[in-house]
């Protein structure tokens, strides 16, 4: 049935069938890719961060740094204890606070506060930070990550919801207007 120099009927059917399957494949790929990228698109659309209360400010005595925890604003039923995130709250005086992420700015291990020497120390690779979060020594290239805070009706609130990482912090830094 082949036509010299042209397509046979069967070959054309095969090409049409392949084209048809290609189109179906692309149509199916759209929702599949959309599903796979959902965590990123969801973050872009509504953002993962919210204002969360850490409790009344008198829980945090002036001149002290204390551990606080908050329930992450975006959670699922299966998250268990992983949804409860700790952070370090430093009350300098009056309305001045600093709220540091628990994650070391090097690779995210949990930093511990040592009030006696006024240092945050990281158990993983030995990063150290001063009381104000500035880098003191070790492998971190920067100081501790800080959450934005505000005081609302006597409660300390922070803007949180996404694990701070060096890359995320740098990306936010570029988006922030210069006056902020």
């Amino acid at each position, binding site marked *: 049935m082949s036509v010299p120099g042209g397509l046979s009927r069967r070959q054309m059917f095969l090409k049409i069938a392949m084209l048809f399957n290609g189109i179906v494949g692309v149509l199916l790929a759209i929702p599949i890719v959309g599903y*796979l*990228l959902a*965590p*990123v698109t969801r*973050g872009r659309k509504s953002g*993962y*961060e919210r204002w969360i209360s850490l409790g009344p400010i008198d829980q945090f005595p002036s001149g002290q740094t204390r*551990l606080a*925890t908050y329930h*992450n604003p*975006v*959670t*699922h*039923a*299966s*998250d*268990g*204890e*992983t*949804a*409860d*995130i*700790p952070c370090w709250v430093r009350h300098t005086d009056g309305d001045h606070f600093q709220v540091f992420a*628990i*994650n070391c700015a*090097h*690779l*995210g*291990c*949990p*930093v*511990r506060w*040592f009030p*006696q*020497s*006024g*240092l945050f*120390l990281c*158990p*993983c*690779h*030995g990063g*150290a930070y*001063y*009381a104000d979060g500035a880098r*003191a*020594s*070790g*492998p*971190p*290239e920067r100081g501790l990550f800080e959450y934005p805070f505000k005081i609302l009706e006597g409660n300390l609130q922070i803007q949180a*919801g*996404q*694990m701070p*990482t*060096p*890359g*995320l912090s740098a*990306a936010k830094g570029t988006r922030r207007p210069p006056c902020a």
Partner: protein
Amino acid sequence: MRLINKVGNWLDQRLQLGAPVRETMQHPIPRDTASWFYVFGSAAMTVFGLQLVTGILLALIYVPSAGEAWNSLQILNHQVSLGWFIRALHGWGSNFMLAIVLIHMVQVFLFGAYKFPRELTWLLGIFLLLMTLGMAFTGQVLRFDQDAYWGLGIGASICSRVPVLGPAMVTLLLGGPIIAGATLSRFFALHVFVIPCSLMLFVGLHLLLVLKLGINEWPVPGRLVRRSDYLEKYHALTRTEGVPFMPYGVWKDAVFSGLILLCIAACALYFGPFGPSGQPDPRVIQTAPRPDFFFLWLYALLSLLPPALETPVLLIGPVIALIVLLALPFLSGEGEKSWKRRPIAVLTVLLVAVALGTFTNLASHAPWSPVMDAWTGFPISSKFLSGRTPLQVQGALVFQSKQCHNCHALGENGGKRGPALDAVAVRLTGDQLVRQVLQGGGNMPAYGKNLNPAETAALVAFLQTLHPSGQAPAQDASHAAGVQP
């Protein structure tokens, strides 16, 4: 016996696999390759089989949920009969599989097996190595404990440093904004479906290539590989000195595989399962996360690299390593196969082995990490205290209470982050000690804001007593000059 034969014949009439399987098993191999050096590939495959079986057994109990995974491991360890042993087999099987894959890789590299026509076999092998490493890392995550939780944080922090795409990659890796249920679920999918299925496919292709192209012949110095006549020579070799794979080669494979399985079972029985360590509760911050054995070298590297070099090395290093491994059969696809005439190949293997061994060894005692409880847990030995003045003893108290001990060893104990201070007075004068304590420097934080003048004076008075009895403490030459003009 007759019944078995009858059933066998009945099946073979329909499947018609008997003849091709017999032919495959009896394909001729060069006589020299029926060697104990050629058993690692089959052993790796056998251990992979063990991992599949024990993995399925664990999946009968394991719950891939961030809230439940840790509890289900406790149930496996303590409540399910022999659950601990299956966990131990799977954990030790993972270590053995990685070790054997690495030994297999070194063997085929030193025997020049990656050269023409087996380039593709090598490339598939590289991907098999990456997948085996992927299985080890994702498996460590499924043991959802403190180490797994903070290990994911480390993975995310490394990922985030990729230019532009970093933050999005972290969100994809974690399946959301934080390490949580979605993270464990996707690592479960990777560990149980995606990577094992790819592994099986690649192992199949890898094996098919070994059968199609023939096992690499024993390298003889001076017998060079040339694309023009290699195949002809290889076939002549298998024709003249060839022996059937079954039974010449296969019995050694079988013995070695059995031996490895026995070793895994012995380790599992003797050492037991790995962890889990503490619960994956981020609020429990009294933890010092450590990776599993095969990632310890990376842990050391991340501690020892200068900060400015870290990101480039982390992001570019693996890419370069992968390109070198993938390009190897194309850059040196011909020529000498024998390790006896390839000194650079031998030195490369030795260098990589020594480097990885050194980093792994360093990571097992992590001198770069402060010892977090040294200031409360480790007393100062009485030999550093006896005969001291009250001011000096007061300085020893400051040393302990300001956590100097966490980073500095005194006598046997203490941190190793900073130098040991047993003989610090020989190296630094009183003034230099004051400057070092207050201003820090050389990777030491400045303590100026945290020590009052009295504490500083006491601490330095104590540090000045720290010198061996036969060695005088350091003195400022200008002071000495002032006294004796």
